[in-house]
């Protein structure tokens, strides 16, 4: 685990810095999910004056509904080595800076049939090429590690996966950002973006954090959209077409902790191939489809028995445990599928992320949008976006978000 130190208080941090040009620059982050949380923190560490606006409660979009797998990257190793490598690196960073929010017990990729076993060597090679220490083990060894596994598995590969609390992890970033002086404003919705001379200059905000609501303007030197699957709506406020695809997935939780490790199906890709333990629950994820809007997504009723049947191939007792909850989360995919009804549910769209520079792309300065990505790489997404903010504003300030242990999420409310 990397060495980290306690986060310095805002005053000490600012005093310790070289004369820095970021201090008087205002950045407005729009979107209070995991990416916005990590970005508010990263920018605050770099010395910017940060305001984050979120229309509802923090983490109420896709972030909180994540099944909680801390990806070591093995799941992506066959399809995209760089994403796999990045997951491995970031999972270690998160463990070192937010260990209290993580159940770090490892993972097993299990082989259910001959085709899976035939993939094992390629999978292990791909993991290792991405820096992931994957270790093939026998079915007997796997069953000794996780007794609820199907006795019919043919073999397994052990990897350093984990699971995290999808609410507490981002809350720790918010707590850190606030400790450094960032203004974190939940229940504050951006309803318009003002532009002047092809530059975004202000956001018009409706504050519903108390009654009666009030409207105000936030002027800033730079605006970052971190709205995940909702990025299209924000872009539209500036007259932009942001290429984002909302790809909902269903998850089902049962009331039984059937494993300590994340249990995954060793295959290329498909539905219902990950069982994640979380406190006293086990969660099977996921399906993937495409939706025109990320709003008010509910799980199709057929998904529940479907996912339970897929989970029970890996862990038979999953089907016997009482269903606790079923829900849907909208993956924010960067790009567009060939058509909305694409049979693969958009799986052909990469899980990579990008910070879209609207100055370069659309001729509108002072604004970028973070699109794509996954929960495990939230800190890296923030780093990339903050690097773009620095370049756009012509300042140099290095990223330091991997260097300090984050405060407890309890401090966000404290």
């Amino acid at each position, binding site marked *: 685990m990397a060495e980290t130190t306690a986060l310095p208080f805002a005053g000490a941090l600012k005093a310790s810095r070289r004369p820095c040009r970021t201090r008087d620059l205002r950045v407005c982050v729009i979107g209070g999910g995991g990416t916005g949380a990590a970005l508010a923190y990263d920018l605050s560490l770099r010395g910017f004056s940060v305001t984050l606006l979120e229309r*509802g*409660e*923090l*983490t*109420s979009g896709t*972030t*909180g*509904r994540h099944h*909680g797998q801390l990806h070591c990257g093995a799941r992506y190793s066959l399809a995209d080595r760089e994403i796999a490598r990045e997951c491995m690196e970031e999972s270690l960073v998160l463990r070192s800076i937010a260990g*209290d*929010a993580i*159940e*770090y*017990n490892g993972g097993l990729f299990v082989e259910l049939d001959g085709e899976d076993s035939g993939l094992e060597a390629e999978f292990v090679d791909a993991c290792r090429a991405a820096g992931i220490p994957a270790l093939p083990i026998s079915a007997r060894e796997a069953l000794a*590690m996780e*007794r609820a596994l199907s006795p019919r598995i043919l073999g397994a590969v052990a990897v350093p996966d984990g699971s995290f*609390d*999808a*609410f507490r992890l981002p809350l720790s970033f918010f707590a850190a950002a606030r400790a450094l002086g960032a203004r974190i404003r939940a*229940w504050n919705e951006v309803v318009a973006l003002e532009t002047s001379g092809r530059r975004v200059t202000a956001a018009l905000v409706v504050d*519903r*954090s*108390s*009654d009666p*609501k009030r409207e105000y303007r936030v002027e800033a030197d730079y605006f970052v959209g971190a709205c995940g699957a909702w990025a299209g709506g924000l872009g539209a406020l500036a007259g932009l077409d942001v290429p984002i695809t909302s790809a909902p997935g269903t*998850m089902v*939780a049962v009331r039984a*902790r059937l494993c*300590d*490790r994340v249990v995954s199906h060793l295959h290329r890709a498909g539905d219902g191939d990950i069982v994640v*333990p*979380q*406190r*006293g*629950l086990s*969660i099977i994820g996921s399906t993937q489809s495409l939706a025109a809007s990320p*709003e*008010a*997504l*509910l799980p199709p009723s057929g998904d529940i028995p479907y996912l339970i049947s897929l989970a029970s191939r890996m862990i038979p007792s999953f089907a016997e445990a009482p269903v*606790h*909850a*079923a*829900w849907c989360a909208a993956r924010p995919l960067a790009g567009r599928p060939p058509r909305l009804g694409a049979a693969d549910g958009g799986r052909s769209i990469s899980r990579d992320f990008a910070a879209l520079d609207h100055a370069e792309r659309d001729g509108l300065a002072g604004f970028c949008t973070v699109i794509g990505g996954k929960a495990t790489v939230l800190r890296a997404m923030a780093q990339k976006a903050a690097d773009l903010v620095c370049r756009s504003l012509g300042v140099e300030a290095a990223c330091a978000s991997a260097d300090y242990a984050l405060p*407890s999420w*309890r401090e966000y*409310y*404290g």
Partner: protein
Amino acid sequence: MSSVILRVARGDGFADYEVEAGALTILDALELIRGGRDPSLRYRHSCHHGSCGTCGALVDGSERLMCLTRLSDLSPGPVTIEPLRKMGVVGDLAVDPSPLFAEMPEGSSYLRASESGSGQRLEDCIECALCVSACPVTRPFAGPAALAAADRDREERPGREGAALAFASGDRGVAACERSFACSRACPQAVQPGRRIESLRRSMAARKG
């Protein structure tokens, strides 16, 4: 599906909403309402599976997590839904949970050994404040969530036993508890804060000898 009417705290009063098809839980129903008829309705939510502890509310007067309360278990209604008690006010069903977090003992534990004994896992308490809302005590009181956390510390981390018992014996400690056990009935995670408070009392008595 039988039609259920939700009577939801809204501004200074209540608004009635008929539940739309497709919703399994109260939270699902609110999502459809906010996604359609009433986009500015405020309620807290995050994980949708009883893990984050944000969506607590009073359902016909009883503390529940809305994401785990199935519509099929409710009376045809109207079913009244109100914000939790003893929390800060945002509006509609949304509260500010700061009063809960203000009481939590400093540095109390987050992770513990898992059921199998070979791994680790997060503590059961999801800090949802249902127990605090349900507690009838009106005197200054750390409350059931904070005292349950202290007892878990005492049990799990021997080095912290002294601090946990000092916390429990303090001005806001176990003495104010009226033993109603409303906390244990409200807890969605079977933490049984009432039993934890009794356990602290026994430990305090044993230490006194």
